[in-house]
């Protein structure tokens, strides 16, 4: 029957660009940390040269990620209350403790790793558990919301973990291709392994997205509408062009056919990073855009949020370049103090 809405109100979407950035950086950091531990903690020789640079990259991505999370709060100065007013039913409560323990573990692991202290193995093992939990929980955060069909799926945590790993591998390709010295990736020797893993990860990512969307499509009217919105609605450009074509299929083709040039692999890495960011954007924005009632799409107030996102990405680049140098100096100083004390 024909319906003409005479009066309805526009509602404001809950999550904005800073949450997209946080999900992106948290997954990236988790992926980088896991990669870093493969060599020194789990004994895969091929990945040993990656350990130190990726450990600092994991920290460098975590800092702007945490800032994005806190800046997004309506009451940022109350952020610490997350640790003393705990609701164990809330995934966000779990997430704040996962973040806390992961942050501490990755800090200590990185320090011992750069000092070449054997204690890094213990902290690496603790960190890797919480890194995986971090990658998964960002997906769980959305998966437990029953009102939004695009979020309400057990595949989402896995998709976020896998795409976070793709982002981590892509950041390595990108920095190796364009600024190897700046991040300490001159000697690597594990390119082949990285690219093989990345190809499989991207394939898995594409399959997970396909399975997820197929299930959502057949769920109900809301599910069909949200998938249609991705393919032919307001999210067509960001989903079809940016996420799928530029961010997934193009880098996959580059990876399969141009493995010899580090520059092309660097470009493939950059495109994959854009793709993973677009994936987070489309899931978060696309998932909450459709109304629960009536015909009005949700309002997004992203103006200042997008500027802050850009600022935090600049901070990320500064940290990626600066952190290895700072850490190197600190390690030198601390070993200098240690040797002078022993004399």
């Amino acid at each position, binding site marked *: 029957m024909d319906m*003409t809405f005479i009066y309805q109100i526009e509602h404001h979407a809950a999550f904005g660009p800073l949450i997209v950035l946080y999900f992106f950086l948290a997954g990236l950091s988790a992926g980088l940390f896991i990669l870093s531990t493969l060599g020194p903690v789990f004994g895969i020789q091929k990945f040993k040269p990656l350990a130190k640079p990726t450990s600092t990259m994991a920290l460098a991505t975590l800092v702007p990620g945490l800032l994005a999370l806190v800046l997004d709060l*309506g009451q940022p100065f109350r952020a610490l209350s997350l640790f003393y007013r705990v609701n164990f039913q*809330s995934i966000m409560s779990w997430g704040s403790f996962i973040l806390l323990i992961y942050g501490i573990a990755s800090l200590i692991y990185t320090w011992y790793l750069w000092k070449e202290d054997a204690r890094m193995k213990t902290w690496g093992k603790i960190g890797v558990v919480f890194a995986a939990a971090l990658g998964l929980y960002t997906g769980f955060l959305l998966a437990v919301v*029953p*009102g939004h069909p695009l979020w309400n799926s057990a595949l989402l945590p896995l998709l976020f973990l896998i795409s976070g790993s793709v982002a981590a591998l892509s950041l390595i390709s990108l920095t190796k291709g364009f600024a190897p010295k700046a991040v300490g990736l001159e000697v690597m020797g594990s390119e082949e392994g990285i690219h093989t893993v990345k190809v499989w990860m991207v394939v898995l990512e594409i399959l997970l997205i396909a399975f997820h969307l197929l299930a959502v499509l057949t769920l109900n009217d809301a599910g069909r509408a949200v998938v249609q919105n991705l393919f032919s609605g307001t999210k067509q450009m960001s989903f079809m062009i940016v996420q799928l074509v530029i961010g997934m299929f193009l880098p996959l083709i580059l990876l399969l056919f141009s493995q010899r040039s580090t520059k092309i692999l660097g470009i493939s890495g950059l495109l994959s990073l854009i793709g993973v960011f677009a994936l987070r954007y489309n899931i978060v924005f696309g998932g909450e855009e459709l109304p629960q009632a009536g015909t009005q799409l949700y309002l997004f107030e992203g103006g200042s949020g997008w500027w802050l996102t850009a600022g935090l990405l600049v901070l990320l680049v500064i940290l990626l370049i600066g952190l290895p140098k700072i850490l190197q100096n600190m390690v030198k100083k601390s070993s200098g103090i240690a040797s002078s004390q022993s004399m």
Partner: protein
Amino acid sequence: MPENKSHYGMVIDLRLCVGCHACTVACKMENNLPEGFFRSWVVEADKGEYPTVTRVKLPRLCNQCESAPCEQVCPVKATHRDEGGVVVVDSKKCIGCRYCISACPYDARYIHPKKGTADKCNLCLERVKGGLMPACVSTCIAHARYFGDLNDPMSEVSQLLSENSYQVLRSELGTKPSVFYIGLDGALAGADYANLAKRR
């Protein structure tokens, strides 16, 4: 909910609602709400084609779910239960993370632009504690809104629910709302995905 405790709820008889929006205005004045944000509002639509056309109305507010997704996801327990099982937000504890807003399947919550904390209908609990009715109920010119204790079989709301067939919004989600509608038109109960508005 235990029988010996009160369980506040609302019944809205849509057969009587005239769509005057007095409830929306009374709510805004009583709770001093910021411009562009509502705790209570009325959706109106025309159904059908001339000459067989009907105006359908749906007053909306927080559904005071017994199994409330907002209460479950709040990481700092700022969303909690007060007297009569009413779901309220403690604005002194809320960190403004917006998780409850995304979890609410009834669009009932928003971030207060000045306070930076989540806000929604609390059934005018301060008025209720003082022996008054919620502002929207007091002001309703058509006597379409009723408030009371759902656990008290003699209350007006319980009597209405026992005498009439009633509906709740989005029952498929299992949230067990405490806001009941008599004469709800199914066309207004969910979104109209075929006619989504274009993004400005």
